[in-house]
């Protein structure tokens, strides 16, 4: 009691006004009864901090929110964590405290404290320093807020495991449809179901209220069900004059029919599906409950139902066992059962009806809807689907495209021709690591491909003249050490031919009574060079600065050095790519591909190099991930990213300098895990410690005298890859 009174007195003395103290007194009593007295007292400090940062109104909201949080969190440790989170949040985004606190019950119902932390930090990161944007996020005006909330709250979603589920579906049924996530926001009612068409499947990203391993089972059941439709289904049923009720019953029988055919081949599927049939043979006899019970009766042999209609359905269905391969029986049995229900005058609301159990699809794929008669909800799904199929067909039959479908980065989209070439088109999204929340946020950064602008055509000739001697030296060096030429290995244990010198020695030794060296063969061995390199140029605004010792902008030397290096690489016949990047916030990382792996190094590439212009900032992690994702597709033993940069990462929407450094460090580590090494050449850099933190001490070289760059870079490359 005494500490509580002290806390009250302190608040009194702080001059927040009598009203707030009263509110605190009331709130703290509720909190104390929920999670104990200590946090109720600690709450005073948080209240004080929140009020100082965000004002009296926020303080009042805090007093309202705290009892709710205490009630929902139930545990004093979690409540404490919430208190300290709110205190931190008030410091980070004081203007957004009120909207967040006023949604406490909704937020805590969806998220636990660490998820809440991740979501709050995501909001702060997303908006950078833009207060308006931040407020829009936390008041849920920005659609991103709901999307990220969804992502944080649901744990594993379909697209966290789509690859394995896709493989599961392909293996079971030998079908390879396009699988897409349902557009968010459309299916946010209770009826979130999967859907399918001729060549696509649309999956809900999450099933509401299903988490953890169960959601994985559910996705699997849903895909297996659709697979059964695709494999055993016939042509779409004509809608004709059928009423919604009849459509629902026919669909139900068809569901059971294809499932039985699939189970005949794969008995284990029964276990998978039956687990989701939970309808009980009791309770109100609405149309929906009858449907659920019939569904169960048709798949679960142990299920007994007393309802006449359900029993009749089961009898009819199993009596037609020999004809299950014919989709027409679904229609005839469904019609009979539908008529019976119609005679019973059962109410059926097609609008609110959702197929049970959860794993089944919405049945739209079973029916051929006349164009104008399609039910509203359905039509846009179907039109969407048609658009998707068309869209896919319209793409050129590019081999690469086929491969990307199977690739982990299948979400990569084909660029649409840009309106303004300097603007670029979004080609990919990359994740980004938040060291404070300790999460890697997927799809956080948007990569725009910016088409290279051709620079002066004379540049190629100029640079060759300027570095004539150097290029000649490098060419000579490369020729001398050219790999791939077979090497003669003498004195071998095994080999194709005898090594005459060794033989003579051995015989001499034998004759003079010594033990001969039996390594008398020689072999020829081709030295393999199996290496792919991506050169990544940082062309942020700072590279436009002239540097001391030569007085020309860094980028000019960078460009020259790249040309010389490319010359060496082409001479070595190493596959290589060149790209340049800069960034303007997380939505606009500009990525200019100057040369890709497939193209030879030509004048066009030099001209493109001549055309790069410095500007904007350095979002290094995203660029590294993008380069890495391209390099990962190269079938080489060794894969190397050679980054040439003049400073540490930074971007306009990241006030915290450590954030992008940690992200880049994470990107380097992730790439290393994929067998891609990142080596950094730092030009005229200042902060060695930060750079070493990102790349590791051994993977970095500093070049102070910029004039030496062209020479040093090429020799460094030769050494690095020898």
């Amino acid at each position: 009691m005494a500490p509580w009174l002290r806390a009250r007195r302190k608040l009194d003395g702080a001059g927040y006004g009598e009203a707030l103290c009263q509110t605190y007194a009331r709130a703290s009593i509720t909190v104390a009864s929920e999670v104990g007295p200590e946090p109720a007292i600690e709450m005073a400090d948080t209240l004080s901090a929140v009020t100082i940062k965000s004002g009296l109104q926020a303080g009042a909201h805090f007093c309202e929110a705290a009892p709710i949080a205490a009630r929902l969190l139930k545990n004093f440790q979690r409540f404490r964590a919430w208190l300290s989170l709110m205190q931190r949040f008030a410091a980070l985004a004081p203007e957004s405290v009120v909207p967040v606190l006023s949604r406490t019950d909704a937020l805590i119902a969806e998220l636990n404290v660490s998820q809440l932390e991740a979501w709050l930090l995501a909001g702060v990161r997303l908006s950078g320093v833009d207060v308006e944007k931040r407020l829009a996020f936390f008041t849920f005006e920005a659609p991103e807020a709901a999307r990220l909330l969804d992502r944080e709250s649901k744990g594993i979603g379909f697209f966290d495991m789509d690859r394995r589920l896709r493989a599961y579906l392909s293996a079971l049924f030998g079908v390879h449809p396009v699988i897409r996530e349902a557009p968010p926001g459309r299916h946010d009612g209770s009826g979130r179901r999967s859907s399918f068409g001729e060549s696509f499947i649309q999956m809900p990203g999450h099933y509401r209220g299903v988490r953890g391993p169960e959601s994985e089972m559910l996705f699997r059941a849903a895909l297996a069900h659709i697979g059964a439709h695709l494999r055993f289904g016939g042509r779409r049923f004509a809608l004709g004059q059928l009423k919604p009720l009849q459509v629902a019953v026919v669909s139900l029988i068809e569901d059971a029919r294809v499932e039985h055919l699939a189970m005949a081949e794969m008995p284990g599927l029964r276990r998978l599906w039956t687990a989701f049939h939970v309808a009980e043979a009791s309770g109100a006899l609405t149309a929906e409950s009858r449907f659920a019970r019939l569904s169960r009766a048709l798949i679960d042999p142990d299920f007994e139902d007393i309802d006449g209609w359900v029993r009749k359905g089961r009898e009819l269905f199993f009596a037609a066992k020999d004809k299950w391969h014919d989709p027409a029986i679904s229609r005839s049995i469904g019609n009979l059962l539908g008529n019976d229900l119609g005679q019973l005058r059962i109410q059926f609301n097609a609008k609110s009806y959702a197929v049970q159990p959860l794993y089944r699809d919405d049945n739209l794929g079973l029916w051929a809807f006349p164009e104008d008669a399609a039910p509203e909800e359905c039509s846009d799904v179907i039109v969407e689907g048609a658009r998707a199929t068309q869209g896919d067909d319209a793409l050129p039959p590019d081999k690469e495209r086929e491969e990307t479908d199977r690739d982990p980065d299948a979400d990569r989209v084909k660029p649409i021709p840009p309106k303004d070439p300097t603007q670029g088109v979004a080609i990919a999204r990359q994740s980004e690591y938040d060291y404070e929340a300790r999460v890697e946020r997927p799809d956080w950064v948007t990569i725009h491909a910016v088409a290279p602008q051709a620079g002066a055509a004379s540049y190629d000739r100029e640079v060759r003249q300027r570095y004539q001697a150097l290029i000649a030296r490098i060419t000579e060096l490369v020729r001398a050490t050219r790999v791939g030429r077979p090497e003669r290995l003498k004195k071998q244990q095994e080999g194709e031919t005898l090594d005459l010198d060794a033989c003579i020695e051995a015989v001499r030794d034998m004759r003079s009574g010594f033990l001969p060296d039996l390594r008398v063969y020689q072999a020829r061995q081709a030295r393999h060079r199996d290496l792919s390199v991506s050169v990544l140029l940082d062309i942020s605004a700072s590279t436009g600065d002239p540097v001391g010792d030569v007085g020309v902008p860094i980028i000019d030397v960078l460009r020259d050095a790249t040309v010389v290096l490319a010359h060496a690489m082409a001479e070595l016949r190493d596959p290589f790519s060149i790209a340049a990047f800069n960034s303007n916030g997380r939505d606009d990382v500009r990525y200019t591909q100057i040369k890709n792996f497939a193209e030879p190094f030509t004048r066009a590439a030099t001209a493109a190099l001549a055309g790069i212009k410095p500007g904007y900032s350095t979002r290094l992690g995203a660029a590294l991930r993008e380069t890495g994702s391209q390099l990962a597709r190269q079938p080489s033993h060794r894969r190397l990213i050679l980054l040439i940069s003049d400073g540490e990462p930074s971007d306009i929407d990241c006030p915290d300098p450590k954030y992008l450094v940690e992200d880049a460090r994470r990107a380097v580590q992730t790439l290393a895990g994929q067998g891609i090494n990142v080596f950094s050449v730092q030009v005229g850099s200042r902060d060695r410690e930060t750079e070493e933190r990102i790349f590791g001490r051994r993977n970095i070289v500093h070049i102070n005298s910029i004039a030496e760059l062209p020479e040093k870079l090429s020799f460094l490359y030769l050494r690095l890859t020898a």
Partner: protein
Amino acid sequence: MLDGYMIETEPYYRPTGNEVDLFAAAYAARLPAMLKGPTGCGKTRFIEHMAWRLKRPIVTISCHEDMTASDLVGRFLLDPNGTVWADGPLTLAVRHGAICYLDEVVEARQDTTVVIHALTDDRRILPLEKKGELVQAHPDFQLVISYNPGYQSVLKDLKESTKQRFCALDFGYPDPSVETEIVASEANIDNSTAHTLVEIARRSRNLRGQGLNEGASTRMLISAGHLIKAGVPIGEACTVALIVPITDDPDMRDALSNVVAACA
């Protein structure tokens, strides 16, 4: 000389078509033969069976990347008095009239495989350059190679000039009913278990090119069958004999485990 290479007891082989007659006809004309098909579908078993049926010794050479022409034709070795020539396995078969079976021939480098060119046209000779000898093939000699078209990338393929010297028999995984029979008989398990294994394998083959290089082979099914025979539950047997060997990709393993669960 080649007694050790004779096959004494009949190797089990269940024909899936008329491949036995076709091969016998090819042997009668001493035509070089090529067996094409995925790994573990019975190519090696077939050629052993044919060697037994034709009562010829069979010399098998498993080809690999580092194999040189000397490994095929032979080389000089040292003895106390100087050098002595030792025939390689191919020369051995050529001299004494065996069937020479080059298993997975594309694994060998292309310049290695050209030594067989003179053997596989009407000359039927093997020049031993290092020794300065021209070996005329024994009348009973036949060259057979095997080759898995899907398994390697385009990087490894036979030269056109090599390919065109062979007649080819195409092997695939047998029909489910035949494969069930083979698995049941080889692993000595009942038909329904064998059927389940075959169903699992068929589904894994759907993933070929979709994350797996190859689906589960008949050979793997037989291994799984042996484990089941020894009392291992089917799920574990499939994990040990099919899933873990076939891929290291966690997503594919997960998908395959669930395929097993769906089929068993």
